[in-house]
C-alpha cells in the first residue's frame, strides 16, 4: 500500500500571504507540493463553509493565511477572519472533525522562508493525522461509490 500524501488547500490573501508564498518560490525555498494555493483578495473573504467544501472535495487539511493583525490591506478583514475561525474550529471539533486540520496563520509578504517552513510543518502534521474520514469526497459519489450507511 503506497503511503498517504495529504491534500491541503491553502486560502492565501492576495496582499500578504500569496506574496509571501511567491517570495518563497523566488527565493527557491522549497515547500511541499501537497499545498494547493488559492488566492483570495483578503482572508476575510473566506466563508467558513468553504473549509467544509474543501474537505468535501477531498482535502485533508485547510490553511487560511492572511496579513498580520493591524496590517490588513483592507484594514479589518483579518480581524473578522480571526473571529470566525476561532468559533468555527471549536464547532468542527464538536462535530468530530479534528480541529488540527484547519489552520489559520498570519504570513506577511516578506516572510518567504517562514511560509515554506510553516507549510512543511503543516504537511507533516496532516500526514501523521491521516486521511480525512468524516466526509465522503465528491468524486467518490460521482463514480457511484457511495454510500456511508
Amino acid at each position, binding site marked *: 500500500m503506497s503511503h498517504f500524501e495529504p491534500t491541503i488547500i491553502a486560502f492565501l490573501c492576495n496582499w500578504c500571504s500569496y506574496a509571501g508564498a511567491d517570495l518563497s518560490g523566488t527565493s527557491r525555498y522549497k515547500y511541499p507540493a501537497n499545498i494547493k494555493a488559492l488566492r483570495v483578495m483578503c482572508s476575510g473573504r473566506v466563508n*467558513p*463553509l468553504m473549509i*467544509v*467544501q474543501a474537505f*468535501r472535495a477531498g482535502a485533508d487539511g485547510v490553511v487560511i493565511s492572511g496579513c498580520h*493583525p493591524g496590517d490588513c490591506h483592507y484594514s*479589518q478583514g483579518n*480581524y*473578522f477572519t*480571526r*473571529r*470566525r*475561525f*476561532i*468559533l*468555527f*474550529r*471549536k*464547532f*468542527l*471539533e*464538536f*462535530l*468530530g*472533525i*479534528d*480541529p488540527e486540520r484547519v*489552520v*489559520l*496563520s*498570519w504570513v506577511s509578504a516578506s516572510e518567504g522562508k517562514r511560509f515554506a517552513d*510553516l507549510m512543511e510543518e503543516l504537511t507533516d502534521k496532516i500526514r501523521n493525522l491521516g486521511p480525512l*474520514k*468524516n*466526509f*465522503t469526497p465528491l468524486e467518490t*459519489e460521482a463514480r457511484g461509490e*457511495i*454510500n*456511508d*450507511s
Partner: protein
Amino acid sequence: MNLFSLKEAAKQALSQTEVNFVIGYTKGSYGFRVAPFFAQNEAEVEKLFFSPLCDLSLVNYLSLEKNTPLEKFGKSPEQKIGIFVRGCDSRAINQILSEKGIIREELIIIGIPCHGVIDIKKLEARFPGVLDQARAEEEDGKYTICFGDKSFAIKKEDILSDKCKHCAYPTPLIYDLLIDGKVEGKDDRYEDIKPQEEATLGEKEEFWKNEFSRCIRCYACRNACPLCYCENCILERLSPQWVKRSVNPTENVIYHLSRAFHLAGRCAGCGECERVCPVNLPLMLLNRKLEKDVKSLFNFTPGIDSEQKQFLTTYDLKDSEEFIL
C-alpha cells in the same frame, strides 16, 4: 396565568385601526395539542389562551407575514401585527430587530413571562392515544394534566421541555404589554452539552454520523426556525451549491453544520427546530454549543437588545489568537 388580562391585552391591541390580527394560541383539535391562532376581532379573542401546553413559538409567523424584510425597511408601517411572546420568543424578535429584519413600529408585542412549557412528545409518550382535549396547570413544581374525566399530577421536571430547564430569560425582554409578574431566569452553565463536549473525537464523529443518518432533509428545522428568514437560503441555492440535494450522512452533516453556523450568535434557544424534527434529531446541541462559545469567546448573547451590534460584524483587538500560527 391571568387569562382575563391576556384577552384584554389582545383586545387592546386589536382596538388600534392598523392592527389586523393578534397571533396567539388556542386549544388544539385533540389531546395535548395547542394551535396557533390569528384573532381578528373581539369575538375571536375569546378563543385565545395560554397554558404550559403552549410549547410552540409564534415568532416564525412574523417572517411569513412580513415576508420581505429588507424591502419594507424605511417605509412607514401600514399594517401592525399583535403577537404573544414568551421569553425565548422575545429574544428571537430582538435579534430580528437588531438585524433590521422587521420594524419595531409594526409590532404590538404582548409579553407572557413564562414558567416553562411542557414537551408534548414526553406527555404523549406517557399517555399515548389521548384524543380528548387536555388541560394542564402548574402549581408548586407539579403539573396537573386533565383529559376526559381523568386527572394526573406529574413532577414538573419529568415533562418540562429541555430548553426550559436552563432558561435564563423567561421574562420577555421586549414588549408593549406584559401579562403577570416577571419570572426569574436560571443560571445557565451549559451542563446539557458537557457530555457531548467531553467525548473523544472518534465518539463525536460516531454520534453525529448515527444521528445524521436519520435525517431525511425535510427542511422542517429551517422552516420552523424564527431566525431562518433569508429570502435566498444558502441551503437551497443552486449557484453556488453549498449543500447538495442528496440525502446521505455527508450532505446531512454539511446541511446541519451550515445551518447551525449561520445561527451562531443568533439562535434564541426557542427549540422549534428540535420540536418539529420528525426523526427527533438533537439539533439544540449544536445551537447550544455555539451559544456557549459565542458567549465565552466574545461575551455576546443574542436577542438581549434590539439595537445591539452583531458579534460577527464587530471585532475586538484582543480577540483570542489561540491556535493561530
